[in-house]
């Protein structure tokens, strides 16, 4: 058995959690390998030394303190539950809740419409904006187009005479 395999299983070996065959193989190896034997001894000792970690005692009144807190907690819970039941039992709150709900629905609808409008506006091109801004001109587009043609023809004539 190799030292690497022994070291991988040392913890389980110390806890007697290995199957008998593997445990026996490790035991044999420890008998012939001073390095692994030393590590096994050190690991076992370190594990035992944990007994020396501090141990504290609970405060003498821990039981009574607990029951005091538990009863306060129950009272608080019952009070909250009582308030909730009272709130739900108040008939005059029903129309208020209804109105608030309607306001919420209407407000949400308005916000959604606003968002849709903004989306549509963002799709408008600059040329379209100019067209809309000059709506009166747009109404007389055909006339303007003809005037442009006449102007172009006139400028061509002048150039040719020069």
């Amino acid at each position, binding site marked *: 058995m190799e030292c690497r395999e022994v070291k991988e299983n040392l913890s389980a070996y110390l806890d007697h959690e290995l199957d008998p065959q593997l445990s026996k193989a490790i035991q044999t190896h420890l008998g012939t390998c001073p390095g692994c034997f030393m*590590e096994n001894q*050190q690991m076992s000792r370190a594990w035992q030394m944990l007994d020396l970690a*501090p141990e504290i005692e*609970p405060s*003498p009144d821990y*039981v009574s303190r*607990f029951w005091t807190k538990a009863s306060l907690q129950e009272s608080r819970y019952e009070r909250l539950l009582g308030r909730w039941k009272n709130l739900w039992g108040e008939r005059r709150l029903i129309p208020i809740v209804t109105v608030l709900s309607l306001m919420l629905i209407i407000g949400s609808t308005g916000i959604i419409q606003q968002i849709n409008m903004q989306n549509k506006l963002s799709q408008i091109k600059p040329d379209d904006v100019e067209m809309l801004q000059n709506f009166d001109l747009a109404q007389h587009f055909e006339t303007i187009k003809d005037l442009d043609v006449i102007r172009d023809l006139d400028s061509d004539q002048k150039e040719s005479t020069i």
Partner: protein
Amino acid sequence: MPDFSIFRNSADYTSDPDVVLMLEFQKGNAASFEALMRKYYPKVLNFIYRYGLTRQAAEDLTQEIFLKIHQMGPGYRPKAKFQTLLFTIVRNSALNAIRNERKYAASLDEEIESEDGSMAQQQADDKNYSPLEQMLENEKSDRIMAIINELPENQRSAVLLRRYEEMSCEEIGQSLNCSAKAVKSLLNRAKETLRVKLMDIK
């Protein structure tokens, strides 16, 4: 593949006396809950203290944990050994407490007030040590505590649950939400670290 074996039906755990006490408490028997608390309170307190909180923080957290268990009474369903459930809550609570910066280094000079009003050191002294011997013993125990606290959280939890609560690797795995094989690996690494760091302490 997740280990679903922990979700056994409640009948499998009624042989656990602690589960029986919890079920009796569920029916209204407060004395059963107190019996559970008296059994586990010192263990929970010391687990949290060794995990790295101060004594006062450990006391407060222990009280909170048992209040939580108390509240669970009406809805309690035994899906694991009571000890496993308890230390799952304990470990998670301690971990959260430390992460929320409620951890204070336990000072060598931190003292507790004993019943007669005089100040005494943290280490319970039930042996007839001379003052020098007592001082050396306290230093050793504080050093061991510091070494435990230096372990990564998962390894620390595995060591504390294995060494002081004697839980099996399967039970520790349920508390830490990992496999028994992973717990064995954690313990192996933790013990190797402890071996190296405690080597020089006589």
